[in-house]
């Protein structure tokens, strides 16, 4: 699955995007975030407050309990501050 990071999530992880093999048992947005958080220090810092980090599945806003389903792309980012 293609995983994208934006703003301070991107800075903490040190990557804009990567390909991640989603393991068995990881079925939702929150489960994938928890899986990523265990990958290293930068990831742990990015997801240290998982309630703050937002996600989009195939470019649509998703909730922590949204199933990953057959989505090709997921993005993690802070609350939006445009406009």
């Amino acid at each position: 699955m293609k995983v994208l990071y934006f703003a301070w999530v991107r800075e903490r992880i040190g990557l804009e995007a990567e390909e991640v093999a989603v393991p068995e048992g990881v079925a939702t947005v929150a489960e994938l975030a928890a899986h990523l958080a265990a990958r290293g220090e930068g990831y742990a810092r990015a997801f240290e407050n998982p309630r703050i980090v937002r996600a989009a599945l195939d470019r649509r806003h998703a909730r922590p309990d949204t199933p990953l389903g057959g989505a090709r792309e997921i993005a993690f980012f802070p609350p939006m501050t445009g406009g």
Partner: protein
Amino acid sequence: MFTVRIQAQDFDPAQEAAALSRGRTDIGAVVTFTGLCRAQDAPGGAPLIALTLEHYPGMAEEEIGRLVEQARARWPLIGATVIHRYGRMVPGDNIVLVVTASAHRAAAFEAAEFLMDWLKTSAPFWKMEERDEGTAWVAAKDEDDDAAERWN
């Protein structure tokens, strides 16, 4: 005509508003909102040198397009143009433009406000501020969430 553009370059609000009503006689109201980069948040605060807007290419267009569809379902709009810039901006620069056109003013005013309120909380853009002491990501404001939620 309904248009969403995500671009680095500046825009001309007057030109965009005129383009929406040109050659038509059914539009009675055009509302134009322009959001600009401001130098100071509070009196006496450290002045802003620049703002850099990061965005999620693809999703930014799609998400604002979905907001425009919601506005059209709610108000009798004849046209709308939304432009959001990305990249580095200095105080005084344009950041975002919302133009709505309708037969009557209430729909145009309300739809423009609805689009701005939702754009701030759901369009994937992030602002980074640059001041003398360094750079910092702007934190989302609760009042922006409240402004969007009041339309529900």
